[in-house]
Structures are given as structure tokens and as C-alpha cells.
């Protein structure tokens, strides 16, 4: 999970793994590990266990944060729709991550806080452009909208890559 601070990475993980949400903002220090076992949706599909590394938010990765990326299989980029700057941060973080690990590192973008659409600074036109380069999902950790589908999209990409 990569993204600027306060975009809702931890909340998205909590929603995805525990189906829970809290309004209270608690900053993440270092990295928080969580796991989620995904049941196969088709008979021949493999069982997948996702180990989620929820990395403390920053607009750029320092050496400590970069060390967390070793061995990563894919990235869930997170931006806050109400703060356009976090979208740029997310894209910069992806660039750093790909430089550090694998230039073709699979990634999906979750633009969080879709429940506050009235406050969004990120426009639909921006997302149209971004969709040309990666899967993009409008998501809300609060309502759960777009969360599961976003994580599953990355999972599918990982499975496809493994084949």
C-alpha cells in the first residue's frame, strides 16, 4: 500500500481485511502487516493469500521505506480524491517503487473518499487519462465501495503475471 499520508491506506486495508472502518485518524509508523486469504472464484483458480504491507504515508520514499519494497509482488496505490496533490504523490511513489524493484511492477490505483464526492479535487478527466496506464477505482473505505474490486483487480494481475 503506497500513498501520501492521510489518504486512507490503513482504512482501506481495515475495510478489505476486517470489513471495519473508523473515522479516527491514526497515523501509521513504519509498516503494518496484514494478511487476507482470498477464496478462489472459479474452480481452477488458485487460492491466494495476500500479505499486505501498509507502508507509512509519505510523498516520497526514503531508504527505510524502500527496504519494505524488497520482494513486493504488486502495489496498491492510494490517493485521496479530495486532495489532488496526493494523486501526484501516488504516481511519484509508483515510479520510485518500480525503479527500486521491477519496472513492470503491477499496480492499481484506488482513489479514496468517494463518499465525499462533493469535495473532490480529482476530476473525472484526470481518471480517464490515468486509466490508460493502470486500473483505477473510485473507492471509499467508509462505505466499502470500490475496495474489494480494487484489491481483486490487483490479485488477478498477480495471478496472470505468475502464469
Amino acid at each position, binding site marked *: 500500500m503506497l500513498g501520501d*499520508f*492521510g489518504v486512507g491506506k490503513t482504512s482501506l486495508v481495515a475495510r478489505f481485511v476486517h470489513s471495519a472502518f473508523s473515522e479516527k*485518524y*491514526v*497515523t*501509521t*509508523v*513504519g*509498516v*503494518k*502487516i*496484514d*494478511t487476507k486469504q482470498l477464496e478462489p472464484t472459479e474452480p481452477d483458480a488458485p487460492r491466494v493469500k495476500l*500479505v499486505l504491507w*501498509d507502508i*507509512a*504515508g509519505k510523498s516520497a520514499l526514503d531508504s*527505510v521505506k524502500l*527496504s*519494505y519494497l*524488497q*520482494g*513486493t509482488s504488486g502495489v496498491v496505490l492510494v490517493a485521496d480524491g*479530495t*486532495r489532488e496533490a496526493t494523486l501526484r504523490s501516488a504516481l511519484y511513489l509508483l515510479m520510485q517503487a518500480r525503479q527500486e524493484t521491477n519496472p513492470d511492477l503491477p499496480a492499481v490505483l484506488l482513489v479514496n473518499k*468517494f463518499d465525499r*464526492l*462533493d*469535495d*473532490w479535487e480529482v*476530476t*473525472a*478527466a484526470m*481518471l*480517464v487519462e490515468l*486509466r490508460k496506464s493502470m486500473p*483505477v477505482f*473510485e473507492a471509499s473505505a467508509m462505505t466499502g465501495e470500490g475496495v474489494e474490486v480494487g484489491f481483486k483487480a490487483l490479485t488477478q494481475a498477480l495471478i496472470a503475471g505468475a502464469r
Partner: protein
Amino acid sequence: MSAELDSNALPSGSKSNLPRAIQDYLSRAAIAPVDSLLLSVDNNWQWLGYVGDLARFSLADTPPEEIAALLKALCIGLPRLRGAALKHIGLPNGRFVDLHLFSSKTGVHVLLLDAREEVEKTRVWQQSAQETELKSYEKTRELRKQRNSLSEVRKERDVLAWALALAQARSGQLRHELFATGAAIEALAEALERTERNAPLHRSAAICNLEAVAHALEKLSVAQISLTRNRNDARPIAANAAACASALLPLLMFAHRRASLSTPQLSATLKLENDTLRLSAYCGNSDLTARESGLVWERKLPASSYRAEEIDAGIAPSWLPSDLALVLCAQRQTSMGARLTRQFDLALGLTLVLSVPLPKGADANTVEFSTATAPRTRVALAVGARCWLLSLDQALAQIVGTAVESRGLLLEQPIYVDGLLAQLMLSPPQVLLIDPNLPGAAKFAFSARSAGFSGLIIALRPVVGGAAVKAAFDATCESLSASAITAALFA
């Protein structure tokens, strides 16, 4: 709680039971062994054993194979060098550790160091700093909103200032017209005096004028005219009477309810009373009897025939008769070869741009409503274009259906369920009509745009009123959402 590691993996007899290399590592880093837990796995990440207190790291109740699997997940990608480290790892059980990896002949040693204290310290200042920044951002956003509001208010003020200036100019014009009218009355009085003096000579001419007015009006109104007049022998139209009659209708159009005109031969008044247009014309010739000198012409406005037009335009049925009269007059004007474009402000507070720029000979009004793509401009849609309507309001759907289908468009009303966006994108219609009262409609519109839907998005804004829902098409995209969907988005 402690246990011996595999004797091959760890040397026995040392003071802390930790391998010498790891003890040296801890000493160099000034880390107390009590804060550490050494876990060992083989090269296939199978559990070998541990040294330290599992309970201190909340791992006492975790099965060894689960711990081994966790270690594998944590260390994946880490180089197996002495002391390869990851700081501030939050384990699924909530404990924070620093992780150090050591390779051995039999596998891997993973040294966990308790990092709770350091993480908590970091959390305190980091939380404070980030909350401050987020609050600052929110305040900036509020400020920006207020600036935008201020800008809007200033624009509105400028518009009002313009309106005021125009009104003042109009007021001056009215004063001038009043003065001119006064002069005309004086002239009329003189003319009447002359007429009275020459009454016998003008008798037949006056009757002729009255008949001419009636005849002209009859010609203007193609059907359903109820005309009461005192004589039946309509004669050829006198030039002044025809001019009088044709002048009255446009006058009424701009005066709304009453228009009057006087000539030396007669005075005529066209009035709108409820849904009836009434013309009264009188000749001041004293040689004529009362019956002979008066003419009354009435026309009940064919409101029912305009009903379809009202629905077509999406206007509520409470359109005032006066507005109907205006439409009627506008129609007559166009049939007389005029071109007219005018904006009506209707009683519901809606704005309808009604234009009648029809070529000579055409006999229908064109009522246009603005669209989300370009407010208050016409949008050409080919006959057969598909429209999607997203609404659960069947009354609204019926009204919209009438409006849309009468324009030759095909209306589809898909079921509002998950996966609708994919359905939309699979076979996108040209127009997406959205009921803003439908929960999630604004989000759907945004998602449609961001997914690349390039058709029109029109918000339908119903006005609640009784069983028959009064609907009006409001084409401004702002109706969907105050700020999220901007005009630029639809450019």
C-alpha cells in the same frame, strides 16, 4: 518462557543461549537481550525453534508453523546477510518489532527486537504533524470555497448592476414615452373635435374601419374565433384599420395584459383576461348608434392545444395563461413574417429559452431547453438517438418519455443495479438522463464521465407538486453536484 534451539542451529551453554555472532551484534547495537526474540527456521522456512520470550511479542499462542509462515512473508526479498534489517514492522498481532535476518548453516535466524517504545514516540509527533497539515489543508479548501462564493456573489452583483442600469435607462425611455403619449392624447382630442364637426361625412368611413379591424383579426386568427360585431358587411380593409389591428398584437405581447391604440377614427383596446383575449373597439362618431359604434372581439386561448407543447418542453402544467398568450402572439408574429427570440421567466422559477426563429410560413413554436454539455445552447440529436433514463420515479419517467419520444429519440430505462456502469460503457447511449433524487446518481454520473462516457448527461429536476410530478429539464451540470462535476469536465 524459553526453549532450546536446535543444537546444530545454536550453540548451547552461552549465557543468553543466543549464538555468539548474534550476541556480538546485540552488544554492538547496545540492545538488551531481554527485548529480543530469536526465531529459527530451516531453508524451507520450516520451524526449528526459538530463544527468548514468545509472550513478550504476543506470539505465545501462535502455532509455530504460523510463525514460520509469517517470517517467510516478512523476509521475502530480504538479502540473507548478517543483520539485514527492517525497522518498525507492525505484526498482525499489533506488536511492533525491528527485524534482523541472519543466515546460518541450517537455515535462517530471525531476530525480533521490541520496537514498541520507539514506534510510540514516533507516532506521537508524526500524528501531531500530520493532523496539523491535514487541518491546514481543510482550512485552505474552505478558504478557496469562500473565495469562489465571493467571486460568484461579485458576478451576481455586476449582473444586478447592469440590470439596474438598464432599468434606469428604461425608466427614462418610459418617461419619454409618457410625454409622447400625452402629446398624442392632445392631438387625439383635437382630432376628435374635428371628427365631431365632420361626423356625418365620416359615418360610413368609421363603420368601414370597425369592420376592417374585425376582418383583420379574423384573418389573423385562423380558427375558433368568436366574433361579435354589429354588422356583417365586411368591406375592404382600410389601410389605417389594418395597421391598427396588426399593431395591437405585438403591443399586447410586450405589455402582457393590455394594449391600446387610438387613431383619429377609432380607439381599440386588446386585453387579456384569464385565458381570454378581448378586443374592444369604439368609434367616437356621434352619428353612429351605440350598437354601431362598438365592436367586441373575444378569443379563448386554446390552452388545451398547448398542453403537448408544455409537456414537450418539460414545463410544469402551471404555465400562466399570460405566458400562453405571449406564445400565441409570438406565433402570430411569425406568421406575419417577424422573427422573434425571447426568454420567459416562468412562475416556477425556471428559465425557459423560448425562441421563435422560424422561417416565414412555419406555424409551430420551437421550445428549447439547455443541456449539460453547453448550457442554454441547442444540441442536435439525430432521430433514433438512444437515451438512458435513470429514475425510480415512474411519473417523471412518463413525462420524460413523452418529451423524449416525441422528439424521435429512443428511451431506455435500465434497472439501477450494480454493474450498470459496465452496461453503460458496453453500449453507450447518446444521452444519459439522471434523476438527481436517485441515491448515488451524482456518483454514477461522475463514474460514467471518468470511465470515458462521452454522451450528454442531463439532470432532470422534478418539482414536487401533487400527484402529477412537475418536471423540468434543467441542463446545468451543477445540478448534479455543486463542485465535483464542473463545466470543464464536460468540455
